[in-house]
């Protein structure tokens, strides 16, 4: 072990293809590690298309292994990327995976003879559990050619790979829990996923939780000893947005906008947002509620809005990226995150960074780091509505939340998170060699 820490990181998507908080966190953390001079070998699953990769032929049976070395990512000096060709995606579930694999195979059959769009002749595994194991095997082969001090794996699909790489290399494993199966599925947990998560946490030398909220789930639901579970809160990437212009939005000045931004899934509590909207509209008229995002509860949310008789007041935008996100923040008077169970929740930080005050659920990790936010129980629809009305109605409240909140967010930097991770690596290494 030299002076410079070297990390084998099993992570997720990078810009511009980011679908949620997991990708944002991996990117923010890695970028900050790069600035701290930590050497990172970043491995991620991706559908590899030839235009994005320079191939590295691995000395392994091609039918089983295929990996590509991505070109250097912009300004990151100390990070090298490897993409493993796989259909694994953040927030995927076994059912979704199943549909995806069938679709992919169908496509492949259609394109037989035509230019192959995937690198190497990959055989994806038929089910998700097997694919996770296949991913682990490829990761181990990849790791054989790399030099590193610790293995850092983000969320459950990479845990088996983390365990395997750590075992092969005899380096300590750190697993980073961005969400648990209990957050995603409530009490209807998928046993396979739970088992994988549990195994990863128990095999790890250190477990990093994104909040105390998540730490208590890890200890309480997964039986992990509290001593090895550390909390590293997420940071926020400061956007360099310019001024505030209302004209470009085409929204009437006297019309207030309340924003929900995130996946429309059980975990995010979209039904509480709509129920609160209904109550707000009982006492105010000039408000529109915007739901930006997609997810498996999208259709139910649309139906629910119609059922409540507020269909004309609720706009669904679908999934938004990049510039569109900035635009929606410029329009919004208020951001609401009524998550049922939110391990962290980066979006409120982004909202504050964009000068939008926030209401967040107390059942979220981010409420541990934010003071200048309004906090509610996700189920307390009356109180959510009460607070929405107050922000829209009382300008000094909005102003104070916005200015103090924006100031507070500046102190939450990924650099601090990265520095904490570094300390955890050092502790894990010290424990491993004594």
């Amino acid at each position, binding site marked *: 072990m030299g002076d410079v820490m070297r990390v084998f990181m099993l992570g997720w998507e990078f810009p511009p293809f980011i679908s949620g908080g997991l990708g944002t966190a991996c990117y923010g953390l890695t970028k900050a590690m790069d600035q701290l001079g930590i050497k990172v070998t970043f491995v991620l699953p991706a559908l590899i298309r030839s235009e994005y990769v320079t191939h590295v032929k691995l000395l392994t049976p091609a039918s089983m292994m295929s990996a590509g070395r991505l070109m250097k990512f912009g300004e990151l000096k100390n990070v090298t990327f490897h993409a493993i060709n796989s259909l694994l995606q953040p927030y995927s579930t076994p059912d979704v995976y199943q549909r995806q694999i069938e679709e992919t195979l169908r496509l492949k059959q259609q394109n037989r003879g035509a230019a192959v769009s995937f690198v190497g002749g990959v055989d994806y595994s038929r089910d998700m559990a097997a694919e996770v194991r296949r991913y682990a095997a490829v990761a181990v082969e990849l790791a054989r050619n790399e030099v590193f001090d610790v293995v850092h794996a983000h969320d459950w699909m990479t845990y088996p790979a983390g365990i395997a790489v750590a075992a092969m290399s005899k380096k300590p494993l750190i697993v980073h829990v961005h969400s648990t199966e209990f957050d995603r599925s409530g009490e209807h947990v998928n046993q396979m996923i739970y088992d994988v998560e549990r195994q990863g946490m128990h095999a790890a030398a250190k477990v990093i939780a994104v909040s105390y909220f998540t730490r208590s789930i890890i200890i309480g639901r997964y039986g992990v000893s509290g001593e090895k579970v550390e909390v590293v809160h997420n940071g926020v990437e400061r956007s360099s947005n310019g001024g505030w212009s209302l004209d470009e939005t085409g929204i009437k000045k006297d019309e207030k906008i309340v924003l929900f931004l995130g996946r429309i899934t059980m975990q995010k509590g979209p039904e509480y947002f709509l129920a609160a909207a209904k*109550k707000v509209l*009982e*006492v*105010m*008229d*000039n408000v529109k509620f915007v739901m930006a995002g997609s997810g498996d509860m999208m259709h139910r949310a649309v139906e629910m809005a119609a059922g409540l008789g507020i269909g004309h007041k609720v706009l669904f935008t679908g999934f938004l990226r990049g510039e569109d996100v900035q635009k929606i923040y410029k329009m919004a008077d208020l951001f609401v995150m009524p998550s049922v169970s939110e391990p962290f929740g980066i979006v409120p930080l982004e909202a504050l960074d964009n000068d939008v005050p926030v209401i967040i659920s107390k059942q979220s990790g981010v409420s541990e780091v934010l*003071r*200048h936010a*309004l*906090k509610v129980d996700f189920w307390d629809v*009356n*109180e959510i*509505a*009460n*607070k929405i*009305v*107050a922000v*829209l*109605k*009382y*300008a*000094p*409240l909005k*102003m*104070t*939340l916005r200015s*103090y909140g924006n100031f507070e967010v500046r102190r939450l930097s990924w650099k601090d998170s990265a520095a904490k991770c570094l300390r955890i690596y050092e502790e894990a290494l010290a424990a491993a060699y004594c």
Partner: protein
Amino acid sequence: MASICFYFQVHQPLRLRHYTVFDKDNHYFDDYKNAFICRKVANKCYLPANRLLLDLIRRLDGRFKVAYSLTGVLLEQLQLYAPEVMSTFDALAETGCVEFLAETYYHSLSFLYSRDEFLEQVNKHTETIASLFGQKPRVFRNTELIYNNDLARLIESMGQFDAIISEGADHILGYRSPNFVYRPQNCSKLKLLLKNYALSDDIAFRFSNRAWSEWPLTAEKFARWISNVNGNGYVVNLFMDYETLGEHQWKDTGIFDFMGRLPYEILKHPDNNFKTPSEIVACYEPVGTVDVPHLISWADTERDLSAWLGNAMQSNAIYELYRLEKKIKTASDDKILTDWRRLQTSDHFYYMCTKYFADGDVHKYFNPYGSPYDSYINFMNVLDNLHNRCSGGAAGAVSRELSQSKNQHDLQTVN
């Protein structure tokens, strides 16, 4: 010689209940919480402290004296929830060694926003004290010792006060000592008593602080510090919240033992004695005038108004509150007037303070809300309801100011 003047501030606010924009009734206050806290503080502080001081007065044959400022909102609560405390105050009043001071009945910031309202509240308070304890207050103290030249002028012009009390802040005194009697700028009769904040805070804030180099503070040590004043002043004004005894400094810190010993230790020195504010005023002439053009208070290290008016929410809430004065008073409905006045208690604005939100220190201890934002929202919802009541509108018509004012016009023409 050194005269020691103890004055205790006794106050409990009427806390609001959780009141949302959907609430429509006229019941704003959290009776359960207020009763609970009143009884708790009565048991921890008011009862044992009153008994202790009464006992000291009797044992020392009247050589121990104190002054109190009891707010109207506290007295109302004591009568309702802890009447036994009232009888111990009666007993204290009967000793002749206890002076009661005047202030605004509702512990309000009315001096800053409405002179009329301020005078009405001061008169209401002095009348209440006179009827309860048989003495008409001759010394005035304003809420949180908020003070400037204008206040002193106003108080002098009322013609019923001999002195006014304020904070002995360094930036108004400069090199001068608070251990003298002064005259407010532009006043000809009124005298000014200034708090010796160093010695007062040794008891009120530092008494149980183990990180303090003088910990533990014994009565002997404190009496020595007091005697050191001899030759450099003739009065030591020890002003503090009464809740220091047993509530801020818990019983197990030894605060009651300290207070029980202190008068004996102080009186060991033949030059020392205890005096009430009125006795101080009768005894000593001013040594100079003190000019306070800008407002000061006894709060925090800044000694300014930022704890109550430091952010946009606070200024907005209090501005909106006093803007209703005319409407409230023309409505001539006692219930509405009382509710409006109860909303003036300074604590409501203190809860909205974001200054120390980060550190979660002393401000948090007194705050029934999870955050300053929650307290602002709650207050504004209540105020909105009150506004509707005095506008003659139905109590349920909410947020009309914001959306269509159509309703409002309709209702007003009906009137």
